[in-house]
């Protein structure tokens, strides 16, 4: 119990700390930050339940007014834009990512974590964020894909690959550190 609560709090802080990593700017002009990498890592490392709770705590603390988002942003204003579906989708993304890593435990960790990050951290996330955007803006599907999905897609793909590599490296360094696997074994 204590360990789980500490792990959840720790990964919440980790997502915030990753937001401080200097951001890259892609060719599309949209800055990408390591923050959504943190969401994916919560799933691949902590597993479904703890990962989702860590991300949920992160989102709640941002809403409460802690400047935890990249660039020291936060507060309720974040949650009223049409793009807010991403924040609502974050815990679900971590849950799906974690679930895949937990269930699919016979193959190479890097590969499984990478694929899980694509399905959970991108697929599940956009499945929440894009319809939310279509309702809240309001927009059609084509517009939503162009203005809410396409700008973030390249960065998210890079981060999914990194999430796979990092999880694999952690597993190699110390197998027990990848808890989504350790608990299943």
């Amino acid at each position, binding site marked *: 119990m204590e360990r789980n*609560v500490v792990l959840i709090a*720790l990964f919440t802080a980790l997502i915030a700390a990753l937001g401080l990593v200097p951001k890259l700017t892609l060719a599309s002009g949209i800055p990408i930050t390591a923050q959504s990498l943190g969401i994916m890592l919560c799933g691949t490392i902590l597993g479904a339940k703890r990962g989702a709770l860590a991300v949920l705590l992160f989102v709640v*603390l941002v809403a409460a007014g802690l400047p935890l988002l990249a660039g020291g942003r936060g*507060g309720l*204003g974040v949650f009223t834009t049409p793009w807010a579906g991403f924040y609502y989708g974050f815990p679900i993304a971590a849950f799906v990512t974690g679930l895949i890593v937990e269930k699919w435990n016979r193959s190479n960790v890097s590969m499984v974590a990478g694929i899980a990050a694509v399905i959970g951290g991108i697929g599940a996330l956009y499945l929440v964020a894009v319809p939310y955007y279509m309702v809240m803006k309001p927009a059609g599907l084509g517009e939503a894909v162009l203005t809410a999905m396409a700008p973030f897609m390249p960065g998210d793909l890079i981060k999914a690959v990194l999430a796979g590599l990092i999880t694999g490296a952690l597993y190699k360094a110390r197998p027990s550190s990848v808890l989504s696997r350790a608990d299943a074994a």
Partner: protein
Amino acid sequence: MISLSSPVRTRAHSWPAGAKLAALAVATFVLFLIHDLWIMAAVFAFSLGLYALPGGRFFRAGMERLKVLWPFIAILGVWHVVTATYVEGGEILLRLLTTVGLANLVTMTTALSDMIAVIRWLATPLRRVGLNTRAMELAIALVIRILPTLIDNGQRLSDAWRARSPRRPGWRVVVPFTLLALDDADHLADALRARGGFLENKET
């Protein structure tokens, strides 16, 4: 850690946080029902007026917060110019600025402790069904305590990397960073358990 509430005291600071949040929810909902550019512009001007009430310093700090919206405004602006839907675009941009502006206003005038009290209140049904919400409250405190330590660790790892390599520390640093953090988590969990851990949920 510094929260995003404004150091400039306003009258709204002493209003109950729950009421401010409820008012914000209603205002945001109503804004989605308005489909008239001029009414929207008036509401936007009104919200700017609210920012100006506590004085220049508060106003500038508030506008600084709204600046982060510009990439989004740029994306929307380009879309509505390309599709030649100017009125609809103006309406959507004004709604975006107004809803974010009002929400930000609540954040700026509400202390972190008041917000956490609201979260605690929202968790009441969970306590009713027997869940221990003290774990959640402790987790909030832990995050605030752990974050500076994590940032420190990250800084030291990047320095160590720079001392050995001419290249910038890349994503590889995240691996030792996470390992260090997981070690700290074990120590922290032990320390918590040694001090009694989470007592049973006695309060209601």
